[in-house]
């Protein structure tokens, strides 16, 4: 069996809202699977159903081909988006407490080294920085040596440096053969970590596939971005372009003819950028609204 987790026609209703509206997908063993979408798209709700924390209104979740049971809890690790730990505990005590809740545990010393916790072992968990806290929460999620790891927006609120460190950590975890399911609204994160993503908006899947292939399938090779005020007034509007965040965007297979054209109309090229389209562009194209709206 190659599918570790299978979601079939998941639906979740809250009073007055359908938060998740018929999602189906499969997560392969050893894969890093990403659920992408803006806030309120239904990512966390979907993840909670996969984790067995909340029951779907309709549809089902299968783990190794079977419905979720109590044994499932022994085999998964979860890092929630926001979690408080019990007060007045040190990092070490928190780890040990969670370790005693499981039948099987990983080697704690190794885990502490992996998550880089050795220097803060005796610190009160309330006095940790954002990055330290996320590392501890990841260590707790890994304490039972899970087959399957759920990460709900693991780097939201971290500074860029801590975020990059955390990505390195998740890559190290993946090298140990863990299957990872994560949600994020950072496209960069998804592109770096995920083998496969589904893009969710308003409770429905609007695209799925490998991040690179998804982008290539929807866009020409590159995008040329030019500040809107660099376009000479009076010149005819640029062909096949979009206006976004004060930038004119020209998607194209080849850059030189575009540059030729820009020079001809007398555009100011000082702030011109040539980029590869990313998931963010894709999301905008598919939904017509921004990711963080």
């Amino acid at each position, binding site marked *: 069996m190659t599918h570790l987790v299978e979601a079939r026609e998941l639906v979740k209703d809250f009073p007055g809202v359908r938060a998740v509206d018929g999602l189906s997908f499969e997560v392969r063993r050893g894969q890093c699977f990403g659920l992408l979408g803006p806030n309120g798209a239904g990512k966390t709700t979907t993840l909670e159903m996969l984790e067995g924390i909340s029951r779907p209104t309709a549809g089902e979740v299968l783990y190794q081909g079977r419905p979720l049971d109590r044994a499932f809890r022994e085999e998964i690790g979860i890092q929630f988006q926001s979690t408080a730990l019990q007060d007045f*505990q040190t990092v070490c005590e928190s780890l040990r407490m969670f370790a005693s809740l499981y039948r099987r545990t990983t080697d704690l010393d190794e885990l502490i080294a992996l998550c880089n916790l050795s220097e803060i072992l005796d610190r009160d968990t309330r006095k940790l920085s954002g990055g330290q806290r996320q590392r501890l929460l990841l260590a707790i999620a890994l304490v039972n040596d899970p087959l399957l790891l759920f990460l709900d927006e693991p780097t939201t609120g971290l500074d860029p440096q801590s975020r990059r460190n955390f990505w390195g950590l998740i890559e190290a975890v993946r090298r140990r053969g863990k299957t990872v399911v994560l949600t994020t609204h950072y496209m960069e994160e998804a592109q770096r970590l995920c083998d496969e993503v589904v893009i969710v908006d308003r409770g429905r899947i609007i695209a799925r596939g490998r991040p690179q292939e998804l982008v290539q399938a929807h866009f020409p090779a590159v995008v040329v971005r030019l500040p809107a005020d660099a376009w000479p007034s009076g010149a005819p509007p640029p062909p096949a372009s979009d206006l976004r965040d004060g930038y004119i965007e020209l998607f194209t297979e080849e850059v030189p003819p575009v540059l030729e054209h820009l020079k001809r109309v007398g555009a100011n090229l000082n702030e011109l950028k040539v980029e590869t389209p990313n998931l963010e562009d894709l999301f905008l194209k598919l939904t017509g609204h921004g990711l963080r709206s």
Partner: protein
Amino acid sequence: MWRRVLAILRARNREFYRDKAGLGWNIIMPFLMVFGFAFIFRAEPDDLFKVAVLTGRGELSAEASPFLATRHVTFVSLSEPESAIRKVERHQVDLLLDLRAGAKYWVNVHSAKGYLAERLLRAAYAGAAPLPARQTVSGEALRYVDWVLPGVLAMNIMFSSLWGVGWVIVRYRKNGVLRRLQATPLSAFEFLSAQVLSRLAVVLSASVIVYLGADLFLDFVMRGSYLALFLVYVAGALCLISMGLIVAARLRTEELADGVLNLLAWPMLLLSGVWFSMDGTSPAAQVISEIFPLTHMVNAARRVMIDGSGLSEILPELALLAGMGLLLLVTAARLFRWD
């Protein structure tokens, strides 16, 4: 299972004893109460005398006895002769009048107010009816501190039990601790057991400290068995902790939990006879007070400490408390939600 219960129990205990402010409060508050109430607040009734009356039918009218028409005397109807006589011995009532067949009255030869009340009784009967037969008892007055201490200990247990689990679990639910624990193999039953055991240990240790402290600074009576007293407080604490768990089973905000806990605690405090005796209060208040576990805990503790009752004599109250506790605990476990 026990490994998981223990893990949660240890974490909760650490959380409790490292919270120095909370810990100090748990110990200091009952002392303040005992001292305050024992020395400052000595309740004097408005009426000059308090007379207990034993009647067949329980109603007090001047036809039953000319004495009952006397003003500025509180007449209290009682039904159990034995405990009524004990109240005369301890100066809790000044006189006991038995109006059933073969009318009698009891007076304590050591009581000054008893002497005066007897003169009033004789005057009321003079020429009107044959005087009831005189019976005497003796005994020193029961001091307020002796009477109030078992109740103060029980009250402290009540506050610590209700808030100790109620407040904490609601906070855990609100800040996501419960959700995190739900994602582990820990079951609700294991989690609740750990909370009950942790709080029980805290409540009982605090009570032992308060008892020893009171013993050091105050002179009070303890006539019964320590084991019986301990079991009364254990059973009572279990009841009240379970009550706290019921409140905490679903609520999501501490403010609401606080309100509900207050709503439970204050009627119990006022109607369980902790500060003043329920004798002579309205029948409705007495019926309500029977519902509260605190009432039974206070009564049983008084019977051990003041009357010197042993384990066998308070067994009915212990069984009642244990039964209530079990019922409340099962209800709490059924109502409990992680989120």
